[in-house]
C-alpha cells in the first residue's frame, strides 16, 4: 500500500534525496514524500501508470522538481504537467543547482510556481527545504483533488 504522499520529489541523485529527506525529517514530513528518480517515473506517478498504476487517485500537494534528470528532463515534465487540464493545478517548485537565467526564464514561461536554487551551504539548504516543505505541504491550501493533511 502506497503511503499518502503530499510531496512528490523528482530527483535522480540519491545523495540529494538523502539530504532533502533529512531536512524534511526535521518537520516529520519525510514519510509524506514519494520519490521519482527520473522524469518518466514522475509522469508515471502523476498519470498512475506502470508501478504506480494502483495508487489512490489524488494529486500531490506539491511537486519538487529537479531540472537535470535522466530520460525526460525537468522542463519537459513541467511542460507536460502544465499543459494537462487535470495536472496543471499541482503547484510545482523547481529545485535545481542551476542558476542559469535561461532555465529560470524557461521554467517561469512554462508556469512554474516557484524556482529555488539549491544553496551550497548545508544550513541554508536545510532551511530552504524545510520552508518549502512546510509552506507547500502544510501552510498552503492545495487545490481540490489533492492529498489532504491527516
Amino acid at each position, binding site marked *: 500500500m502506497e503511503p499518502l504522499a503530499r510531496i512528490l520529489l523528482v530527483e535522480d*541523485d540519491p*545523495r*540529494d534525496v538523502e*539530504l532533502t529527506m*533529512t531536512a524534511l525529517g526535521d518537520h516529520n514530513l519525510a514519510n509524506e514524500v514519494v520519490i521519482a528518480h527520473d522524469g518518466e517515473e514522475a509522469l508515471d506517478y502523476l498519470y498512475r501508470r506502470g508501478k504506480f498504476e494502483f495508487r489512490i487517485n489524488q494529486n500531490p500537494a506539491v511537486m519538487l522538481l529537479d*531540472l*537535470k534528470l535522466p530520460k525526460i528532463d525537468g522542463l519537459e515534465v513541467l511542460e507536460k504537467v502544465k499543459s494537462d487540464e487535470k495536472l496543471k493545478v499541482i503547484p510545482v517548485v523547481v529545485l*535545481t*543547482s*542551476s*542558476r*542559469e*537565467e535561461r532555465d529560470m526564464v524557461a521554467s517561469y514561461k512554462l508556469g512554474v510556481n516557484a524556482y529555488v536554487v*539549491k*544553496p*551550497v*551551504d*548545508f*544550513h541554508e*539548504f536545510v532551511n530552504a527545504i524545510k520552508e518549502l516543505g512546510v509552506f507547500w505541504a502544510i501552510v498552503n491550501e492545495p487545490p481540490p483533488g489533492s492529498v489532504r493533511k491527516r
Partner: protein
Amino acid sequence: MGSKWQLKAPLSAILGYAFALIAVSLALGAALLAEHCNLRHLEFPLLLLPIILIAWYAGPRPAIVAVVLSSLALNYFFEPPFHSFYIAGSALPHWFAFILFGSLIIWFSAVRRRAEQKLRKARDQLELEVVKRTQQASLLNLTYDMIFVRDMDSVITYWNRGAEQLYGFTQQAALGKRSYDLLHTVFPVSRNAIEAEVMRSGRWEGELMHTKADGTKIVVLSRWSLQRDERGRPAAMLEINTDITGRKQREDQIRVLNEELAKRADELAVINKELEAFAYSTSHDLRAPLRHMVGYTELLHKHASRTLDEKGRHYMATILEAAKKMGTLIDDLLAFSRIGRAETRETNVSLEHLVTEVLSEMPTSDGGKIDWKIGKLPEVYGDRSMLKLALVNLISNAIKFSRTRSRPEIAIECVEKKNNRAVVFVKDNGVGFDMKYAHKLFGVFQRLHSTEAFEGTGIGLATVQRIIHRHGGKIWAESAVDNGATFYFSVPTNGS
C-alpha cells in the same frame, strides 16, 4: 572672323574705289590714245575692260562707280557732240548699250561671287567637321578601354589603340577579321541569344573571355551597342571592353576569404555552444557534489562531534571552508562566463549616479576612514548592470588593497572625454603592484598577492576587462610597489 572683317572692310572699300578710279582713267587714256592713232571703235571694249576687272576684284559698288565714270567719259569724249555731256539722239542706243553691258557684267560677277562665297563657307564647315571627327577619333584612342566597331557579320572595321595595346593585335592585323575568331571569344550564353538580345534592345552588357595575341586569357566587361542606318536597319556594332581580369581575381580571392571566414564563424559558433554547454554543466554538476560534501560533513559533524577531538573538528572545519571557497569560485567563474554570453542592454548611464549607488551598497567595514575624492563623471553609453559590476570590482579592489594604510585615499575621476569616448580612472594609495606583472593583471585566476594577505579568487579584474571589452573600450593600469594603483578604462559616451 567678325573682327577681321570689321578692320578690313573700310580700307578695302576705299582701295576698291581708288582702284576703280585708276582703272577707268587708264582705260580712258588708252581709248584716247587709240582714237588718236585712228583706231576707231576701240573705246567701247577698252572702257568695259576695267569694269570687268573692278567687278571681279573690288566688288559691285566700285564697279557701279566705274560704270558711271566710264559712261560719262564715253559720252564726253566719244559720243557726238564731242567734249560735251549732251548726247545726240543717234548716239543714245550706243551709250545705253554700254551701260547695259556694264550692268550685266556687274550682275554676273555678283552672282558668281555669291556662289563662290557659299562654296567657300561649305568647304570651311567641312574642314571643321573633319578636324572635330579626327579629334574624336583620337580621343577614342586615348582610352584604356578596348573599343572596336564591327559590321553585322562581326568583321572588324575600327580598332582603337586601347585594343591594340591590350589585345596585342595591331590595327592592320585586326581590321577585316571576325572579332570572335580573332579573340577566341567565350560567351556566357550562346552568341545567337546575345545577338537576338541586341537586335531587340539595341544593346547588351556582360562578361566575356578573350584570348590575347600572346595566348593569355582575360576576362572583359563587354558593352555592345547597335548602330542603325538612316532607314533603321542594323549597320554596325560598337563593342567597348574593359579588362576586369584583376578585379575578377580579387573577387574570387574575396569570395574564398569570405567562405573561410564563414567557416571559421561556424566553427566559433560551435565552440561557443560547447563552452556554453560546459558552463551550464559546470553550473549544475560541479555544484551538486560540492553541496553533498558540505552537507555530509555537516551531518557527520552533527553525528560525531562528541567523539571527535580538537584535531578532528579542525579537519572538518577545513573541509567545510575549502568547499565554501570552491563554491565561491564556481559562482565567480559562472558570473564571468555569463558576461561573455549575456546580451547587453545598452542605454545612457550616468557614471556619477552609478558610483554613488555602488558606494552606498558597499559594506562600510573601513569605519569611514577612507578619503574619497569623486570628480565630475560623464554620462556613458552601455549596459547599466555590467558597468555597475565593473565599478563594484574596481572600487572593492581599491578598498581592499588600501586598507593597510592609516589614511586610505581613493579617487574616481574622468581624465579625458573626446571622440565619443571617456577615460575614467579609479586610483588608490594602497600596496600597488610591480609593473612587470601588469600583463597578468586581467587574466582569470591570476593573483599578484597571496590569499593570506588579500583574499580573492582572481576573477574580478578579468570580469572588469571582459565588461569593458564588450563595450568596445580598453582597460589598463599604472602602479608601483607600495605606491598605490590607478586603473584606467575607456567607455563610449554615445551609441555610435
